[in-house]
């Protein structure tokens, strides 16, 4: 592999193919010929990832990426952007080989993080961090019991990985960004970075404004009390003492005793765990209380995705835009894409988000193409450029086959919408362009398909109709086993 040279104008962009995770390298030209300004956006791989056909370990995959980064940049990362605290965006700072290489073989400029990672002087950031830490504590105790337990893998080891990433920078080189900021790292005449999210008023927007602060505090205290009680139950199930039980111990009997009680056997049956399907199984409620925990897990996952640093890069001449929303979900998107919220940029009066979207020529699809991380009418529908390309970092087959009930990433209706917006220029990190789209096999656990046969057939027709633009992109898309690369020229 050779060095990634800067394009004469515009930006060269590389999407790595390590598996289910985000890693993007961008090279901008500088005033000196052949000297690029390198931006690395995330470097991660899902915790429990192992490709359907096996292959290298997670650690090896990340090391391969970092080795290539070193070759490509000559060991210079001018700006590292970590969008949010999920392992599929951070694994490169966790696995030993990759981490060590990051420590030893690079020189760094700045680290950019969202304001939620601000360590001092930001009460809201402190509050959110504490709240999230608490939730994660509860959930990791009962991961095995939860129907959505695998979600927690997004957050495995992320805190320490982020600490490792931060350790690469002096504290004065860590920049935490607020929505509305415009960053011009190469000075006037260079690309402009418009910071969109995460919203600062995430909690405020959702708080019922009718209620005064006292009640808001009470509610927060109440949520914690409820969470603690759930945690106590989880501890009880882990064999420790449960101090959240509603009655004195002697008031109740244990499961084992209940299965010897004629009343409970007759009217409730026995747990079906002993292999004997019970007539009463459809009515038992053994798992219902776990729903509250599952909700917490989802909220937590949602929350972290919503803390994504979302930004748009505008090229100076053509004013073309590259959009990187991280894994922002609707809350984050709406805070800037919904013009009713009155979002504006302090240092770029007159530029609106609507305007940026209409000039977007490259969209890094949020959250691996899940159904809820791309805003429809106020997002994708406004990306009207006829040059639009979408990049989807994912491993569709792994997500469908290896997850308990199958994750649909990309979600087919979104994929089809992307196809129609980009005229077929959708690059998936696992397979590449749409003409290589593979039909998913039935899920090993439940035998279902991620989409109907009819939808699959419809998709085939749509892809065939877009063949001309797909082939055109094939012609300028560099493909290796390790990455896809393309250039976006900055020409009017």
């Amino acid at each position, binding site marked *: 592999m050779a060095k990634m040279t800067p394009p004469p104008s515009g930006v060269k962009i590389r999407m790595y193919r390590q598996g289910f995770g985000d890693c993007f390298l961008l090279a901008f030209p500088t005033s000196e010929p052949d000297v690029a300004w390198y931006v690395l956006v995330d470097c991660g791989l899902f915790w429990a990832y192992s490709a359907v056909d096996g292959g290298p370990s997670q650690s090896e995959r990340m090391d391969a990426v970092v080795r290539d980064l070193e070759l490509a940049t000559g060991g210079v990362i001018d700006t590292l952007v970590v969008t949010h605290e999920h392992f599929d965006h951070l694994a490169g700072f966790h696995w030993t080989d990759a981490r060590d290489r990051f420590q030893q073989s690079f020189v760094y400029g700045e680290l950019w993080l969202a304001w939620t990672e601000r360590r001092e002087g930001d009460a809201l950031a402190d509050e959110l961090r504490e709240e999230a830490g608490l939730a994660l504590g509860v959930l990791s105790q009962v991961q095995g019991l939860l129907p959505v337990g695998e979600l927690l893998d997004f957050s495995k080891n992320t805190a320490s990985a982020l600490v490792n990433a931060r350790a690469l920078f002096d504290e004065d080189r860590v920049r935490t960004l607020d929505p509305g900021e415009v960053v011009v790292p190469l000075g006037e005449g260079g690309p402009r970075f418009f910071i969109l999210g995460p919203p600062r008023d995430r909690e405020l927007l959702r708080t019922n404004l009718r209620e005064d602060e006292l009640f808001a505090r009470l509610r927060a205290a109440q949520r914690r009390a409820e969470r603690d009680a759930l945690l106590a139950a989880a501890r009880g199930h882990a064999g420790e003492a449960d101090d959240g039980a*509603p009655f004195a111990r002697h008031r109740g009997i244990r499961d084992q005793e209940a299965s010897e009680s004629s009343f409970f056997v007759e*009217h409730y049956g026995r747990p079906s765990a002993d292999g004997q399907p019970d007539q009463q199984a459809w009515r038992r409620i*053994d798992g219902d209380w776990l729903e509250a925990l599952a909700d917490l897990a*989802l909220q937590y996952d949602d929350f972290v995705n919503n803390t994504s640093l979302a930004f748009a890069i505008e090229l100076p001449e053509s004013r073309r835009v590259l959009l990187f929303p991280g894994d922002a979900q609707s809350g984050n998107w709406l805070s800037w894409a919904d013009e009713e919220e009155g979002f504006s940029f302090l240092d770029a009066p007159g530029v609106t988000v609507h305007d940026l979207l209409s000039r977007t020529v490259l969209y890094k699809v949020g959250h691996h193409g899940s159904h809820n991380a791309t805003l429809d009418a106020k997002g994708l529908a406004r990306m009207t450029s006829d040059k639009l390309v979408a990049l989807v970092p994912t491993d569709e087959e792994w997500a469908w086959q290896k997850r308990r009930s199958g994750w649909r990433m990309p979600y087919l209706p979104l994929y089809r919408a992307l196809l129609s917006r980009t005229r077929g220029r959708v690059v998936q990190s696992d397979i590449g362009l749409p003409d290589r789209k593979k039909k998913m096999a039935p899920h090993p656990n439940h035998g279902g398909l991620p989409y109907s046969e009819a939808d699959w057939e419809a998709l085939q027709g749509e892809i065939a109709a877009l063949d001309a633009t797909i082939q055109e992109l094939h012609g300028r898309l560099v493909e290796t086993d390790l990455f896809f690369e393309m250039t976006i020229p900055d020409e009017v």
Partner: protein
Amino acid sequence: MPPEPVVEQQADPCAGALHRPPVPPHRRLRAFAFDPSLAAELDTSGLESVTLEVPWEESWDENERRCVLRGPVGRYVEVIDHDPASRAFYPPVELNDPYLLARDGHDPSESNPQFHQQMVYAVAMTTIRHFENALGRAALWSDRPFHEVDDPEEAFVERLRIHPHALRGANAYYSPERKALLFGYFPAAEGVHDRGLAPGATIFTCLSYDVVAHETAHALLDGMHSRFIEATNPDVLALHEAFADIVAIFQHFTHPEVLRHTIARTRGDLGRQSLLAELARQMGRAIGRRAALRNALDPELRPHPSQLESTTEPHDRGAILVAAVFDAFLQIYRVRVADLLRIATQGTGVLPEGDIHPDLVARMAREAATTARHVLHMCIRALDYCPPFGIDFGDYLRALITADLTLVPYDQRNYRAAFIDAFRARGILPHGLRGLGEDSLRWQAPATQLPARALAPLFDAIELEETSGRSEGEPSDRARRGAVSPLRDLVDLWTLDRERRDVWRAARRLRGRLQRVIGGWDAEWAARELHLLLDPVDLPSVYRDASGRPTTEVHSARIARRRGPRDEEVVELVVEITQRRRAWDDADRQTEIDSGAAALREDDHGDFRFRSGCTLLIDLSSRQVRYAIRARGPISDNRVLSAQRRYRSSATPGLRITYLGDRGGRLRDVEPFAFLHGPAASPR
């Protein structure tokens, strides 16, 4: 009925001569009138408990050779006290214990799980009784889906299951899937103790009368309209919530001490804030709200025009309907007490300062209780006059008015005017109606009736079926001779004292017969008057039989039988008929399939279901269709289908759908009737 207790053969001679009292009609059981918080507040101390009279039931215990009521497991409900979060089962209460019989059950107590079992049982049974009294027939729970059972008989659910301690969290719900009520408990946080709650005290949702009544009402409504779970417009689930709150709120007026206390305190003005208009007081405060969880007199719910438009969440939207009904109640109450006030004030209508006379309090309380009962019964009776699916608030208003007109043709006390007024003030207007007079609101009869012979097989079928008790074959002798009105027997089956399983079986057979009869109806008439398509249609997305005719399901058939204020009896046969069609989120896909451009695979059932159909109310004496409540359009109507699709796309799916797949396990997404919406973190 359980067998009489066996008297030993060599009994004392006295035994034979002893006068044994009959089975008592009621069992008296104590319960919290609202919830435990009332005892802690000076103003309401002493009002916290009530004694409920629930229908007597018991069952024979072979081991103990006596009648027991353990669980309690009765004929309608069964209380099973499993607390999976705490890994505990709490032993069942035995309400036939002589000591408990002598003291009206356990004393109200937060720390005694057997009292909790007693209370959920008593409140659920009381709620069921209100429902049955209003409808004049036995209440049934919703069926298990037929595809889940081996034998159709197993679809019958005899008892609703109640779990008083199922969840550790600030919520409670009715699970339509498991035919069960699940109640949660949770700690109150530090800081709420100044409002009558000890810090760290456990709040039990099963000790809130309102919460228990609300969830039971969900189950009762689901038993009658199982498709009101399908949210095809923003009102469907909101109506479910509103109905459940209405059933809870109007039961407040059945507690005489609380009622008298409130009337004395408000000097008879029930429009002032009081306990009576609030729902789930303790729970609302415990989760850090200023007051009760919901309040029919919430200033936020005062009528304003954009209210409905801007409110979509089912509980919030439902609250608007509850506020409207409560308004109607207040108007009626004010009319009813106007004369009392005039008498008490020598005609001025202005009460003097100070407390009002206890006799006046008692009289006004009686008027309030009567009004509340009438309003509650009106709201319940309206359920027989609803479309089979996709109801909206306007439909419900029409149902209320029609039901009441049928029973009480002369509205001397202006009940209906009060309802129309309250609904209109909140912008609840029936679809496509110009006027809001009684006559335009009332559902219409078909413009032309079916010829008598077209309806005759309907009645013949019923007669064959119900009088003989045979499932197939020859008419019974009785029916052939015509000696006894066979309809009489049919009607009698739907009274309160019948075995519910027999009623269920009869309804099932009746539906089968009706289904065949409908096939013979004049297709042109059915399409015009009922929006029911009986001739072949050229739309592959419609579920059709081999000859291309849309399949028709008789979703429900029942007898509505009630007595008016002058003791006149009204008997109607209610028939709900539906047709269905596969529908896709992608409109182009729909067009492709329906135009034949793309082939429809057998296992492709589309993204959602589109339904059409009607509810018919057939007068059993005149044998005429009295009301036809039909869907907005026939099953072929693409305009109505698009509207449903638009509504669907506006409701964004949760993250869970991506992670778990659409059918990813049994999750809250499919438990639509939580007392609080969403995770407990965001009440309201």
